[in-house]
């Protein structure tokens, strides 16, 4: 319900909220898009699109990992692409056999797709009835949603340093730049630290994106 209610509170209508869940279908990007629109309105639309895009980049890495698991024809892969999210990738790669990996991907991906879209519609309809979103704490709920998405990724020192630095940069730039831009500039922190591998983990292999790095929360793309 949380995404639908938040989207409507941000100024999207019920159908726009539903299209984001039906087509975009990747939770972090959806919350980022609506969060930037909530802060800056339509003027911030380019920044909202850029934020959603950058948060969607991790799905490229998931697709690369899932391609050998899915295999088969181009149509099978095209269908699989839409269900490629944190959850389905994590569940699939955690399975011991190839068959279980394929099954885990489809069941998780399609199951969450259906549940996520039903709850988005209900949340959006409910959000439409609520009125002032602040009275219900929906602005705080958005911050908590981002924190919950971030939490499972803060296992290594490098990630923690990047997270803290990005939060400081975004806060410091908020008064001087239009809404949406501080978040994008904070992303530069990740690129710089990642390229030069500062604050690297002690073992060389620990810096890779392991499958267990992705969030393991149920019901969330």
């Amino acid at each position, binding site marked *: 319900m949380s995404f639908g209610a938040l989207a409507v509170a941000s*100024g999207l209508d019920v159908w*726009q909220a539903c299209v984001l869940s039906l*087509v*975009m*279908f990747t939770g972090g*990007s959806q*919350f980022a*898009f609506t*969060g930037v*629109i909530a*802060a800056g309105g*339509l003027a911030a639309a*380019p920044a909202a*699109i850029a*934020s959603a*895009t*950058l948060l*969607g980049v*991790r*799905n*490229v*890495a*998931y*697709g*690369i*990992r*899932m*391609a050998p698991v*899915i295999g088969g024809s181009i149509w099978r*892969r*095209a269908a699989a*692409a839409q269900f*490629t999210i944190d959850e389905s990738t994590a569940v699939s790669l955690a399975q011991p056999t190839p068959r279980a990996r394929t099954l885990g991907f489809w069941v998780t991906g399609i199951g969450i797709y259906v549940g996520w879209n039903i709850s988005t519609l209900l949340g959006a309809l409910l959000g439409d009835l609520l009125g002032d979103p*602040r009275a219900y*704490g929906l*602005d*705080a*709920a*958005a911050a*908590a949603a*981002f*924190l*919950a998405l*971030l939490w499972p*990724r803060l296992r290594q020192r490098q990630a923690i340093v*990047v*997270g803290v630095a*990005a*939060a400081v940069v*975004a806060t410091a730039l*908020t*008064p001087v730049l239009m*809404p949406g831009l501080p978040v994008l500039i*904070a992303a530069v922190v*990740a690129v710089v630290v*990642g390229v030069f*591998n500062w604050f690297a983990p002690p073992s060389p292999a620990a810096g*890779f*994106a392991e499958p267990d790095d992705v969030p393991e929360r149920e*019901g969330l793309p």
Partner: protein
Amino acid sequence: MTLWNAVLLASIICVALKAVGYLIPPKVLEAPRPARVADLLTVALLAALVAVQALGVGQAIVIDARLPALAVAAGLLLARAPFLVVVAAAAATAALLRLWGWAA
């Protein structure tokens, strides 16, 4: 640009990103740098969004009921509470603090 344009454009880009992964040879992921940057990019964006969503009102930095609500969320995440519980508890905290007039 209308809001509908923005919704559709962002959605199409995100779907395209998912599809692109299936067209790239798996060897690319063996290079540690792109994988590391992609991972840290997600962390930086989410952390920046937490900060802006918890402290920003347009271009102003405002400390209000969102901050204690975020602290409650962090406590629940430490206790491994599920996503919906965390989000609902944060909303309830902010709503109650405002109802009682303890925070703006």
